[in-house]
């Protein structure tokens, strides 16, 4: 980072500092969009279990019941997606494992698949569900991240998010459509973990563009 800023002080990089913040904003906005989109889609997946053939108000109910959930997810995604590359840089161990968009896409697909499985597949009991999802999530991490920092951050955020959700539920701010409380609790941390890994992956990939973007910005100015 220090190199970047020192480079940016001179010559054609004059406008780099300003454009870096712009770039940060763009990245945050993209991550936010991704988060909102994923939240909506996954919410739909979860809702699907109970919908009838022609639900005229599925869409509206999604937007009305807890309108603040997708924005929250988006904000969290933006934060996490920015946090990951930042942390990589701080810890000095850049994420070297296959930094390619195809991998990111694969990761996203697996994440959606995990959600799909949790929504569609009928499990015998909650322990089985939890174990399967946990194994899948760790597999996701192993396949696409493999960095200790990523794992740690993922676990911490998953725990915090689960706690926060439970607090919200206890306070009645938010409730699950399904009354099966245990069921919800069993899949929530794994989904959070997988989501954190996925969003972190996206964020890291986006961070690769930082130079490029700032360069383009400086040209435009």
């Amino acid at each position, binding site marked *: 980072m220090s*190199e970047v800023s020192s480079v940016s002080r001179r010559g054609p990089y004059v406008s780099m500092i300003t454009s870096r913040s712009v770039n940060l904003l763009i990245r945050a906005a993209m991550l936010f969009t991704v988060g909102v989109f994923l939240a909506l889609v996954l919410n739909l997946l979860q809702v*699907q279990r109970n919908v009838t053939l*022609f639900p005229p*108000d599925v869409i509206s109910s999604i937007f009305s019941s807890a309108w603040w959930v997708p924005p929250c997810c988006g904000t969290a995604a933006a934060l996490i997606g920015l946090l990951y590359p930042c942390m990589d840089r701080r810890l000095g161990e850049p994420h*070297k494992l296959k930094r*390619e968009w*195809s991998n990111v896409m*694969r990761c996203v697909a697996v994440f959606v698949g995990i959600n799909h499985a949790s929504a569609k597949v009928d499990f015998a009991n909650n322990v089985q569900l939890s174990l*399967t999802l946990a194994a899948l999530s760790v597999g996701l991490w192993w396949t696409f991240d493999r960095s200790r920092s990523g794992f740690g951050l993922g676990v911490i955020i998953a725990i915090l998010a689960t706690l926060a959700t439970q607090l919200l539920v206890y306070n009645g701010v938010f409730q699950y459509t399904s009354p099966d409380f245990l069921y919800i609790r069993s899949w929530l941390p794994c989904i959070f973990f997988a989501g954190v890994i996925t969003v972190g992956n996206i964020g890291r990939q986006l961070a690769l563009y930082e130079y490029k973007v700032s360069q383009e910005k400086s040209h435009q100015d």
Partner: protein
Amino acid sequence: MYQTTMSSTISYVAVPMSYDRIISLDARRCPRPGRTRRLDGHQLTPAPRMTVRERLRQNISAAFYRHGLLCASYPVPIILFTSASILTCCYPLLKLPLPGTGPVEFTTGVRDYSIPSHESQGDLSERPDWYRGPPVAYIQQVLVKAAVSPWGNSLVPVDVFRSPLGRVFSLLDEIRNHVYTDRSLEALCLQVTDLLPGLRRMQAVLPEHGCLLVSPGNYWQNRRDLFDADPDLLKTVHQHEPKGLHTSATLRDLLFGVPGKQTGVSLYSKKRVVTYTVTIALSSYDARFVGSLRARLKQLHPSANCTLREDHMVHVHFKEEIGIAELIPLVTTYIILFAYIYFSTRKIDMVRSKWGLALAAVVTVLSSLLMSVGLCTLFGLTPTLNGGEIFPYLVVVIGLENVLVLTKSVVSTPVDLEVKLRIAQGLSNESWSIMKNMATELCIILIGYFTFVPAIQEFCLFAVVGLVSDFFLQMFFFTTVLSIDIRRMELADLNRRLPAEAGMPPPKPGTLRPRETPPPPRPSPHTITLQTPAFRNLRLPKRLRVVYFLARTRLAQRIIMVGTVIWIGILVYTDPAGLRTFLAAQVSEQSPLGEAGLPPHLGVAPVFPGGHPTSTLSVLPAPEPTPLPENQSQGHRAARPGVAPVSSPQITWGSEDEELWRRLSFRHWPSLFSYYNITLAKRYISILPVIPVTLHLSPQEAIDTRHPQDTQHAPPPPPSIKTSDLQTDLTLYKVAALGLFAGVLLVLLLFCLYRVLCPRNYGQNGVPHGRRRRGDLPCDEYGYSPPISEISPLLLRGHSMDIECLASDGMLLASCCLAGQIRVWDAQTGDCLTVIPNKGLRRSSSNGCWEHRDGWDHISAFEVEGIATDFREPGGAMGGPDVDIFAIRRRTTPARPALFGDQPDLTPLIDTNFGALPPSQALSGSGFDFGSLVEKAYQEHEPSPVLVFPPSPPASQQRRRSLGDQPVLPPELPPQSSADWDSSVWAMELRGNLIATGRSTGKLELWDAVEGSLRCSNEDGVSGITALAFLNNRIVAARLNGSLDFFTVEINKPLGLLQYRGPPGRGSLPPSPCYSSEDVISCHLTRSVQCAHQKPITVLKAAAGRVVTGSQDHTVRVYRLEDSCCLFTLQGHSGGITAIYIDQTMVLASGGQDGAICVWDVLTGSRVSHVYGHRGDVTSLVCTTSCIISSGLDDLICIWDRSTGIKLYSIQQEVGCGASLGVISENLLVTGGQGCVSFWDLNYGDLLQTVYLGPSSEGQSVRQLLVLDNAAIICDFGSELSLVYVPSVLEKLD
């Protein structure tokens, strides 16, 4: 998978001889991981006893090698075999029903019908598994066909349907009030409650809180009075129709119960028969009640000649409907899947046909999936999962990675090998990782299998079979396709590459073409920064900016296109029945048209009595005695006269009426029930045989029921059919015109979008990634033209021919051109300090020089300038004199301090002066001995006290002084005369202020860089010096015959006199020792290694007390500098060594003509890693602390991880780009290109900037590039040198 490995391993064991032969043939050229380790004599850790893992690995590698050879040798049979096996495996798929959400039917008899039990009964094999339990409802339809007959001329078109529709109310009453043994309809029918909220609009029409019984009467709330009061029936019917295109059942379909076209409720109906149904949904089936209702209705309204079958009831099972809520995630997964495939196949690089290989990759994956499904079906595992849902995940699990890895591995094998060897090598290189990945994936899937969740187990089963078949296809199909592709590329490559390589000898490409025309003078160097489009594909898209992304991928257009396709697909897929209805209606409309087109003309023709075949179907009520209610008989009576004059409506019953509901949309029933929040998904309904009802109405009745306004509709004129034809035609034209308009609008919209997204001449640049044309500002793909940057190169001019050697020690810069002229420049300012002339130039301006030289002491500088200019004119120096003088003066004047205020600026004259030097060599003795050196040195510096020096001159002034000194240096000439001017300089090194030059005659010379005097020379060797290394006080010279000479430079002078050059401010720079001019410098051969290499030494590098040589004989040798002792001979390359890098940290990297890069540990001599990165020679190698950067003849720059040898990424440069590399800082890379240098960010592989050296330098590539300590870059550029400062980096160093 393991089985495959095992079998191939076994086959390998069976034929070890042949394999060994292959290896021995190829051992030199194709070092494989397993073998070369043992071939390598200097490997310090030769595994004496291989572990099981090693053996397994080697066996796998060998098996893959053989397999690759096989595939590449017989491509066509293998592809045929693979296709055959794919087709065979997919054959069972034919038996599978096509996946879809269409309803499934099952027909049973009515008589012995009983509600199916919930338990599955194994014996009834033909009974589908969904046929259990009671249905949601039994549907009883009463099909009414009504007509006013005979048709009279007094009737208006509305009469066609008003009175027939009016009869529905009495019919409804009849049905509602029907009672059979105290069972009424109320007790049996399906009771419905509220409509769903949100359907308020339909509340008036659909029944609520009662029987689900729909009929056209619902339009008028089943009230006759409302019907009679309705002035416009058609409007009432149409006002409930949805606007625009609809895919599901409409209200009209629901109420009429027949497809809209067949109702006959139209002003232009030609048949004049109105058809509608009364639909009753029964919750329970009472055969007797239904039977009595049927009998009653038949009795009331008999349908003569009606032979509808009444013995079958059809059970219709509806699958789960894909609603919008389910569609969104599905579409999302597919989008992700496509993005994955897109990004994956983009990575395929360096092949002949990118698209072909991408297609092959996708085909591989898809057909492996199909094969897995087919195989599973073959073994009796019928898929129960929703195929469409799990498909993307299966693709993602199987993945395209292996295919890509395979491609990459094969294309990174040396190009000069035969195709099948390349394939074999590529396969065997990646065999281990492929097998490891397979094993890992299989393990993961196995773990998934043991979750004992049925769905996951099934998924895993599919995935396993898919993985295995994918492996099979990869090995056979894709490898073969790849070999074909590579073979194609070989040919194309040969054509393309040969001319480019011809002019470029690998080690130090000395261009032999003389420059006939110097570049025209130009006011300022032309620099441009640009995001070169050629580098866009270097890795993955680097674009964040959405607009660019959209523009490049044409995303908007593609999305619109895909959206259209999806929309059409949905249309066809979800409502095939609707389309079918439409088509059927079209067809049926066509055929009556044909029939109806005839009767008006032949209307009176005696067709009717003639027993025409069509008349058998027609109901002719007349001859039949009918013991019927009065109205019916009236109808009959009325019908009889009507038949002859006008085409009278005829009610016919055909087999198509039996199951008229089939022609409805298959959404008909689900949507009807969904209005009451009853889902039919995964449930079924039973449709009872229809009850036919025929109504004949008399014209009088029709007239009676008329509404006053009905007559206002003008009766259709006699050629009404014609007009209706016209009408349909007109609507057709309207639709066509509308469609055309919409299309044009869409095109315009797209065009605007396109213009907005791609503002400039996008797509007109010819080859998108091709080279930029000069003249116009280079703009990238989108017409984005970057602004002029601030980095401007400093052009150092003076050489008349192309620059051959370049050396620098940070402060000074020495360059030597093909003409043999050596120039010394100040690396900071770009001033030319010294010119060491050569004979060629002297000869060209020979006569009259003596006088000139003699007069030098006396002539004022102004005159000198004039004369010098004059001299240069006839001398015909290559660069025009104006240019030279202009260039130098322009460069130097601004930076020049007012040093000699009273003296004119002499610097522009320097080269001129030396260009005019007389051929002193001829006069002086050609001998050279060290003994006379001392005297000469004294002589040289005799005149120096003449000049007055400032008391403590700063370094730059010192240099100026020496500049000024030069004109008064005639005694310098004798030593110069001993210099060898006939031979050309092949190698040059600069340390301190000593320039060491190695000549083609094998002579080593030491020049004083500042004063331009020859300090000593050594002629011990005869073979040409190809490379020089100058470290501390030692010079190592590599010779053409492969010998290596070590010289020691001795300075006979007290050490205290050694001064340090350089301004005090530059403390960070390593000070170079300065040999003062008083010192006596001698250079003597300390050791000569005669046969260091068998072939010419191509590269020589020295660092950290080691001297490393690379030779054409494929080996690298490491010597210790102190005692010139050979430490290691490093073998491992299969081609001549072309590039070597060694630095202070004892890391040695070498690149060869085989495209391989080896990293060695200099301390132990062991090979750390060995990678193939280039097709063709490795031309240049640089290391940073974390990575190795290599460039090759294939215009590729590869960045490798230094510790692991993994390729991080590669940068494809333009064709013919220079191969020079330099690392400015840990993450800033400089590469030379065609007339430009590019700066790259090493961390991300991004192009930061491209600096153009001149506007007209196409074809001039930068061949040498030096990075100075002050972060300046010096590179050769034809006959010029270019000094580029990187200001930001300069700042950073401070």
